[in-house]
């Protein structure tokens, strides 16, 4: 496979508008940090992302104190107050043949702000909780994936030869493997194994968020592996590494002290973009009922719930979609900013 190499020049380039005075004497990380902070659009994106995260983790506060509802309990026969009147949360079709039951639509007030879903639950409250699950799975899987890919890429790139071939081909295999089949099968296995599957301290069962997290992490390892491996290869050829080898330094020490620092920036650049990708993937899997499982809610499951309500109560499907767009957008913009900060003219190519 042609290698898309990441080639940071050892000498730092100037970002547009920067002067030598500003960067002289500072460490590369400080310079990068400074550039990032100065990038107003990226900072705005970061702020948006932080706001979304904070709001999601405030879900219990919203549900308890503002909406006064438990969004995980069915409320099929309940009532609520709208415009001073008590109305049923799920209303029978009135006109004509009277078929069907429709949940109430958005009230734009504290209770049922965005309306109810087919179980009579408060959509807005579920939206917050859904954000929590989507972000936990998204960020968790991106971090796990990046760490695993980093480790594997170090091994493959540094030792080359046999380990490189085997690992690269395994990565090819994972990449060409049908994602949905893997997810469906794993979900089914975990759903039907009594007590769940134990992996050390973690128990994987239907209601654990670890399940979709690990599945998604596994799927995207090749995605991070390739650019990082290319980077490891290129750094490995540098003179100081060869110097280290000739001095008799051990492989492990070389990996950690010389190669790793130069490779970490690749991973950091990829991280926001990975989170964006994993959030989208989690939404797709949950939408198909093979990601996050009830009773947990995620933005993807809420969109799935909203499918059957699309023609009458479109907000149930539209609202989580908007949240996903905002989250992923902020991560993409932030990712751009991080890349510009670490090297304004980096040639890393990232595939969606």
């Amino acid at each position, binding site marked *: *496979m*042609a290698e898309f190499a990441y080639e940071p020049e050892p000498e730092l380039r100037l970002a547009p508008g920067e002067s030598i005075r500003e960067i002289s004497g500072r460490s590369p990380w400080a310079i990068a940090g400074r550039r990032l902070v100065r990038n107003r659009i990226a900072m705005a994106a970061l702020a948006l992302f932080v706001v979304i995260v904070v709001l999601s983790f405030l879900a219990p506060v919203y549900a308890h104190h503002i909406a006064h509802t438990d969004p995980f309990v069915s409320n099929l026969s309940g009532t609520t107050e709208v415009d001073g009147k008590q109305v049923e949360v799920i209303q029978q079709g009135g006109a004509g043949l009277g078929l069907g039951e429709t949940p109430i639509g958005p009230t734009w007030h504290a209770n049922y702000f965005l309306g109810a879903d087919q179980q009579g639950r408060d959509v807005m409250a579920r939206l917050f909780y859904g954000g929590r699950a989507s972000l936990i799975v998204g960020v968790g899987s991106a971090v796990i994936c990046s760490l695993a890919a980093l480790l594997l890429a170090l091994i493959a790139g540094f030792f080359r030869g046999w380990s490189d071939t085997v690992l690269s081909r395994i990565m090819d295999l994972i990449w060409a493997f*049908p994602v*949905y*089949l893997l997810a469906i*099968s794993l979900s089914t296995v975990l759903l039907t194994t009594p007590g769940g599957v134990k992996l050390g301290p973690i128990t994987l069962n239907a209601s654990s968020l670890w399940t979709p997290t690990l599945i998604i992490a596994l799927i995207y390892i090749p995605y991070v592996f390739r650019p990082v491996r290319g980077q490891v290869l290129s750094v490995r050829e540098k003179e100081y590494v060869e110097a280290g080898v000739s001095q008799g330094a051990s492989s492990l020490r070389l990996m950690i002290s010389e190669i790793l620092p130069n490779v970490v920036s690749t991973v950091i650049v990829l991280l926001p973009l990975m989170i964006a990708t994993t959030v989208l993937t989690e939404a797709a899997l949950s*939408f198909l009922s093979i990601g996050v499982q009830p009773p947990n809610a995620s933005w993807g499951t809420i969109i799935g719930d909203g499918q059957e309500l699309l023609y009458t109560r*479109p907000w149930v*499907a539209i609202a989580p979609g908007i949240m996903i767009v905002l989250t992923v957008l902020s991560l993409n913009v932030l990712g751009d900013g991080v890349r510009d900060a670490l090297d304004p003219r980096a040639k890393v190519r990232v595939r969606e």
Partner: protein
Amino acid sequence: MLAFVVRRIIGLVVVLFAITVLVFLIFFSTPGIDPSARLAGRNPSPATVAAVKHEFGLDRPLPVRYALMMKRLFISRDLVSYGNQALLVVPAIWAAAPVTFSLVIGAAVLWFVMSILLGLIAVTFKGTVADPIIMILALIGISMPVFWLGEVVNLITQDRLHDTFLFSWVPPLGYTPLTEDPWQWFLHLIFPWITLSILYIGFYARVLRADLLENESADYVRTARAKGLSPKRVLLKHMLRNSLITFVSLAGLDLGVLIGGGALLTEVVFGLPGVGRLTYNALLSLDLPVIMATVIYGAFFITIMSAVIDIVYARLDPRIRPT
């Protein structure tokens, strides 16, 4: 070159073998999966179930079952679906492939044109407010889940605004073959094309823009400018060609994935009977023969396109050697 091709073909076969074995193992280790009860119809007697099991070779050891399935798939090509015994798997894929091709190639044309256009505009108007706006719009495009976008598009065109002049021409969801009625074929595919391409336009516009900017300071560009060529000519004739290298190589890979059935959610949401939808239905009903066939089909295209792109990239950029 020959060595490269041979190596990649061997790699393809190995990957296909490994994937099919994995799919097979995963399938048969999923609990509740035994297809004999399903194949035997509703509430069959135990004797019927045993008979069906034997007929489908499901009581043989795993390697034998695998070999039987591969034989039926490749050699006698009479592999039958677990869900409907009148459904021959290979012809079903042949019939579904043109739909997927129609969807993907149409979307690709749209996204190529639009992203090149947007990339060029962004570069030409660099420094003005148009540049970041285009880039943000592009980013919004790639931030949307495709199934959600498709549902929203359907909601608007099929229901909410269907009765207005804007969308009354939109036909109901589904697919009409090109050979049957080209106009209907086109109408049915317009919104699927738009939905699918929105996801990629943003990304590729940015890729092109980044490459164009990088090439701006290249020597040959400075020479061309010094010679007095108009900026537009420089841009279109010289820079664009060189900047399309990355664009083309990445697009090739994405196309491979899409043709291989990656557009499955788009096909499902818009009711297009392509390979993606076949895969989706087979996965949900755990129909192993169809899953196997679609997995092979998909892996084949992905791997082939990946090899093709490596060759193309090597041709275009002599600094890179394909491995």
